[in-house]
């Protein structure tokens, strides 16, 4: 039972990551490989603020989301003119730089050793101490995120994003300030990823730079590509499958190292085979152009 709860918590965290990444990749059509950087910013914000300064989880999470938003604004500004391969590459570069900062800014992040002993969240004296309680918190925040993302995609703002994806030039002719829209969605998406990071840090109670490498960005990307781009249902189901599928390997009884690598093989196969046979993914409403 503990194990199932663990998986559900992971699902909640990755669900938030997948939904927020889908806003950029699926709805706006920009192949971002920087999501793990914002995930890491949220996690480190909670880790540093709660261990060193004893700040409450929820306050720390909000600070982390704000920091991620500011960073996203800056990175988004650099990325605003890129498309396709260059966008993917430059955003990947920012992920690498972010990991370098996590690794090397030792006075704050403790470098490769990471930060242990992160406390569980507390709200008005009530501590989310057990995993069951934590699962409820995670699922609640996941549901809020899903609702929020759903609202965005149904709003006129969401329609503009989809229009950017389909035909940027035409939209410009109509007088839309495309850069502002792209920046706005990147900032929102980054802040949501930071929320997932905050949940992760407080759940695992330990953070280190290796969790937030560009590889993690690829894993999140696999989830939404599997589920299908620009589909909220797709993002959620994709996250669920990619959390559950590798867990099945656990029961085959392979050594840890091999099992971890087999996971990677599965992610890679999913990406390659989907591109070959079903680029739309399971429920995709948008095929990559």
């Amino acid at each position, binding site marked *: 039972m503990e194990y199932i709860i663990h998986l559900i918590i992971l699902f909640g965290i990755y669900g938030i990551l997948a939904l927020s990444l889908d806003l950029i990749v699926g709805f706006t059509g920009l192949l971002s490989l920087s999501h793990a950087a914002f995930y890491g910013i949220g996690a480190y914000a909670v880790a540093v603020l709660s261990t060193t300064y004893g700040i409450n989880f929820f306050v720390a999470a909000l600070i982390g989301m704000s920091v991620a938003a500011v960073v996203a604004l800056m990175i988004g500004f650099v990325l605003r003119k890129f498309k396709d391969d260059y966008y993917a590459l430059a955003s990947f570069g920012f992920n690498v730089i972010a990991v370098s900062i996590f690794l090397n800014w030792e006075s704050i992040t403790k470098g490769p050793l990471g930060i242990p002993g992160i406390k569980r969240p507390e709200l008005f004296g009530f501590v989310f101490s057990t995993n069951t309680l934590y699962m409820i918190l995670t699922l609640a925040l996941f549901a809020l995120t899903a609702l929020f993302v759903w609202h965005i995609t149904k709003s006129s703002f969401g329609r503009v994003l989809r229009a950017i994806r389909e035909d940027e030039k035409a939209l410009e002719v109509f007088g839309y300030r495309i850069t502002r829209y792209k920046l706005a969605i990147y900032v929102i998406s980054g802040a949501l990823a930071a929320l997932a990071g905050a949940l992760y840090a407080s759940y695992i109670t330990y953070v280190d730079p290796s969790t937030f490498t560009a590889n993690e960005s690829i894993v999140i990307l696999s989830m939404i590509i599997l589920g299908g781009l620009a589909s909220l249902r797709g993002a959620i189901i994709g996250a669920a499958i990619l959390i559950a599928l590798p867990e099945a390997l656990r029961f085959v009884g392979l050594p840890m190292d091999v099992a971890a690598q087999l996971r990677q093989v599965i992610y890679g196969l999913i*990406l390659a085979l989907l591109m070959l046979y079903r680029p739309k993914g399971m429920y995709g409403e948008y095929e990559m152009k």
Partner: protein
Amino acid sequence: MGIIPQIIANSIIAGAIYALVALGFNLIYRATNFFNLAHGAVSVVGGYTVFGLYRLLGLPLWIAIICGVLGSGLVGYILEKILFLPLRKRKSSQMVLIVASLGAFTIIQAVIAIIFSSQFQTLFDSSMETKLYQIGGGIITQVQLIILIAALLIMGTLAWIKERTMFGKMVSAISDDAVVARIVGINTNKLIGRVFFIGSAIAGFAGIMIGFDTGLEPTMGMSLLMKGVIAAIVGGVGNIYGGVLGAFLLGFAENFGVWQVSGEWKDAIAFAILIFFLIFRPKGILGKK
């Protein structure tokens, strides 16, 4: 002996290795117009083939190296035939090709880690003589000297192929306009298959050289690939000479940067250069082709 000549020597060696990766990458980019991210993993295949044949099975070194180079070439060729060619035939977008190559990258890297474990290995063994050469105040090892000479030879040969042979001219034709190339009777897919083989074999050679110089790790493909891609973009993507120029520039920037700040920032420096070029001179120093 001053430190500056040593840094210059190190920069040149790093530049030579990046140049080999960039050469293969650019060659493939010229013919297919997409960022083949699997290129980094293909390079690692060469290093590990030599490790397996020479260090584990005890075959003569020269046989192992030839097999390593051919092995990488073959892997690249197979990827083209089973993955990229079908995708191109379906007129898939760049995004689809990038994601597919990302999948291939992940699979190859994980398979290597399963076969050889993710531990750090070196091709260099104690029986090899470590001769040191002093050139202009900087010290380089015999291996590094071989890397440098081999890299220069390969660059020269490629330049000759490009300028003087029918094959080189046909590849240029494809990169200018694939449709016209087909109309005038060039078998484009056959040619692109060969380009993949050659480009991947060169990358494999780079992987082997790194195995002798610093050592092998299954995950090194990503950073190697990125250095190659950055070199290519800095010099002018798709431009064979630009890639070499960019590689040496990157080698110098990294080594002097590391001297000024610290070793852990190497990757961040490389990506900072990339982002700088993407913003201010996206066509690279020499421009495309």
